C-alpha cells in the first residue's frame, strides 16, 4: 500500500526528534482499528492505514501538550487540529502533522452487523463498494451504507494542515454524492416539536451517562470538571431521567458551538448508539448562519464566541 509505506518512511525519519507519533494499528480484526502510539522504529510495523481508521487522534493532543508529538490525520481530523491550534490548546511548534489522501472510513457497528459479528479477515473499499471477508464468506455493501455518514458529504478528504503528505494529492476516491441516506438532523427537522421531544426522550432514556461522548471529543475542555457532575453550581442532578441527560447534552453542545468540527467521535464513541452529533450540527449551522464561520478551517481565525464585536454583520439588533 503505497500511501502507508510513504507515511512510514516520513514517520521513521521524523521519529528521532519526536516523543511519540500517534497513528492507527490493527484492533480486534480487519474491521476494527485502534490508536497506535509509536515511540520506537519497530512500532511502525504495527501501523495500518485504511477504511478502518475511524478514530480522530487529535483528541490526544491536549493531554500531550508539552511533548513533541506527531499525528496522522484524515481531512476531518485535521480540522480538529486546526481548532485546537486556534484556541491555543496545542502548540504548532510541538506538532508534526502527517496527512494522506483519505477515501473515507466505515461505519463499524453497521459493518459488524452486516458481518453478523463474525471476525473480519480483510476489508477493501473501491469502486463504490466495501467488501469484507469473514469466517463464513464475503460480504459486500454499497458505499452509501458502509461508510460513515460524514464521509458521504466530505469536502476535505486531505489534511488542511500538514507537514508531510503521503501523496499524491487529489487521488482520494470520493464517495458518490447521490443517494445519501437522511441524516439525523434532516429527520428531526421534518418532525414537529412534539415528535422531536419524544425522539430525544426515547434516545436519552437509553443513555448511561458514561460520558464517552465527552471523553472522545477533542474540543471538550472541561472534562474532569464537567457541569454534569458539579454540585456547585448544581446544573444537573444525578437522576437517571431523560431530562437530566438531555440537559447535559445541551450544555455540551452549547460549549461546542462554533468549535465542534463534526468529526463525529461523540456519536461513534457512544456505546448505546445515540445520535448526539445532531445537536452539535444544529448549533454549528446557527453559528455558520450568524457568523459565516466553520470551525477548524483557518489556523489564524478566532472562533466567533471567543471575541466580541460591537457591530455584527449578520445580527441586526436595531432592526428588531
Amino acid at each position, binding site marked *: 500500500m503505497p500511501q502507508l509505506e510513504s507515511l512510514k518512511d516520513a514517520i521513521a525519519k521524523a521519529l528521532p526528534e519526536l516523543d*511519540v507519533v500517534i497513528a492507527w494499528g490493527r484492533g480486534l480484526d480487519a474491521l476494527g482499528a485502534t490508536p497506535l502510539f509509536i515511540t520506537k522504529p519497530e512500532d511502525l510495523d504495527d501501523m495500518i492505514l485504511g477504511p478502518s481508521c475511524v478514530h480522530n487522534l487529535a483528541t490526544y493532543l491536549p493531554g500531550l501538550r508539552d511533548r513533541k508529538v506527531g499525528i496522522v490525520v484524515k481531512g476531518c481530523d485535521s480540522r480538529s487540529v486546526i481548532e485546537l491550534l486556534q484556541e491555543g490548546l496545542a502548540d504548532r511548534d510541538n506538532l508534526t502533522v502527517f496527512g494522506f489522501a483519505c477515501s473515507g472510513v466505515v461505519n463499524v457497528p453497521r459493518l459488524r452487523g452486516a458481518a453478523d459479528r463474525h471476525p473480519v479477515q480483510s476489508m477493501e473499499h473501491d469502486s463504490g463498494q466495501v467488501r469484507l471477508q469473514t469466517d463464513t464468506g464475503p460480504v459486500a455493501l454499497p458505499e452509501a451504507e458502509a461508510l460513515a455518514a460524514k464521509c458521504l458529504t466530505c469536502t476535505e478528504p486531505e489534511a488542511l494542515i500538514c507537514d508531510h503528505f503521503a501523496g499524491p494529492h487529489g487521488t482520494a476516491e470520493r464517495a458518490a454524492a447521490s443517494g445519501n441516506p437522511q441524516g439525523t438532523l434532516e429527520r428531526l427537522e421534518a418532525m414537529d416539536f412534539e415528535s422531536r421531544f419524544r425522539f430525544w426522550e426515547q434516545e436519552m432514556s437509553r443513555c448511561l451517562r458514561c460520558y464517552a461522548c465527552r471523553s472522545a471529543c477533542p474540543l471538550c475542555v472541561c472534562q474532569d470538571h464537567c457541569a454534569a457532575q458539579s454540585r456547585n453550581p448544581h446544573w444537573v442532578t444525578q437522576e437517571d431521567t431523560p431530562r437530566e441527560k438531555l440537559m447535559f447534552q445541551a450544555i455540551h453542545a452549547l460549549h461546542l458551538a462554533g468549535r465542534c468540527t463534526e468529526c463525529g467521535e461523540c456519536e461513534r464513541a457512544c456505546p448505546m448508539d445515540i445520535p448526539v452529533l445532531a445537536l452539535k450540527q444544529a448549533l454549528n449551522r446557527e453559528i455558520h448562519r450568524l457568523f459565516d464561520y466553520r470551525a477548524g478551517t483557518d489556523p489564524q481565525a478566532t472562533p466567533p464566541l471567543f471575541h466580541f464585536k460591537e457591530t455584527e454583520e449578520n445580527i441586526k439588533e436595531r432592526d428588531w
Partner: protein
Amino acid sequence: MATTLFIQRGDIAAWLADTAATHTVYAPLRDKTGVHFHRLCAQDAAAQTQALELDRQAQTPPKNVLLPACETLLEFSYAKQEDGSTSLDVQPVMPQGAVLLFGPRPCDARAFTVFDRVYDAGRGKDPYYTARRAATVVASVVCTRPEQSCFCTAVGGAPDDTEGSDILFTPVQDGFIVRPLTQAGEAVLRHPLFTEAAHREEEAADVCAAARAAVPCAPADFTAAPEPVAALFDDMEFWQSVTAKCLSCGACTYLCPTCYCFNITDESNGLEGRRLRTWDNCMSFQFTLEGSGHNPRPTKAHRYRNRIGHKFSYYPRIHDGALSCVGCGRCISSCPVTMDIRRIVHSAMQRAQCATPEQAHE
C-alpha cells in the same frame, strides 16, 4: 431437584407473557440499535417477544435488574413547624415485587455472584440489593455463539456455567432443554408449556461441550493474575504505556457486568428530596478526589491500574481467588479505542514474570 424439562422455541413467548402477570419480566430484545434487556409489559408481551434474541450476547448486561443505574435509597422532607422549628422526616424506599430475568448469558449471571460476595456479606448486608436478589429468578441461556472478544473460560467461567443462575436453558434444534438449579427456579417453571425431558440431558451436554470449544482462545489463564498484577503496582511506566490510548471515559465501567462501584448523592427540590445511589466510575477523576483537593489517583494511568488491580488482584485476594471479571468482553467491544483487557492483563503477567530472573517464561 426437579427433572430436566423441555420447551419449544415458539412457546417461550407465551411462557414469558404468562409469567409477566405475577413477575416483572426482563428479556433480551433486538431493537434498532442492537440487543438489550427490556422490561416486558404483560399486555404487550406477545408483540415485544417477537424481537426476542437468545442466540447472541446482549450488548448491555442486565446489571440494572439487581443494581439499578439510579435508585432512591431514602426520601426526606423538611417541614416548618408552628413553633418555628424545622422537622425532618426520612423514609427508606425498598424495592418491591418478584422479577424474572430471562436470557442472560452465564457470564452475566456469574457476575451476580461477584456482587453477592460484596453486597450480601457478613458485616454489611445491603438491604436494597439483597431484597432484589431474593426476589429475582435468573434464567440463563447457554452461550453457543461467543463474540470475538469473549474470554469467559480464562477467568474461571464457561458458556454453560451455572453460578449465579436459578435455571439454565440449553438451546437445541427445536427448543431449549431446561435445567432448574434452585427452588426459586423450579417455581417459575411450573407451567404447562414445559415437558419432561430427562432423556435429552445428553443432548444438552453435547451442546454445552461444543459451546466450551467455541470460546476464543485467551492469551493466558487469568486466574493466575492476582500476584503478578500486585507486583506491578509501582511500575508506572507499564501503566502509562498501556493506557496511552485510553480516553478515561466510562463506557467499559457502565457496560461491565461486574462493575459495582456507586455514588451516593442527595438531590432536593425545595423542602423535599431523595438520597440516590447511582453507578459510579473509578475511571473518572472525581472518584477519589478528596475535600482537601488531594487525589490519590490523579491520572488515567493510576485509575486504570486500580481498575485492573481491583478486578484481577484485590477482589480475588479478598474472595478466595474469585476474579471480578467474567470475560464477557463488552469492555473491549464497547471501548471507543478498543482497549483490550486480555492483552493488558497478559502483558502484566509476562512483565511481572520477567522481573523475577529465576522464572523462565515461554
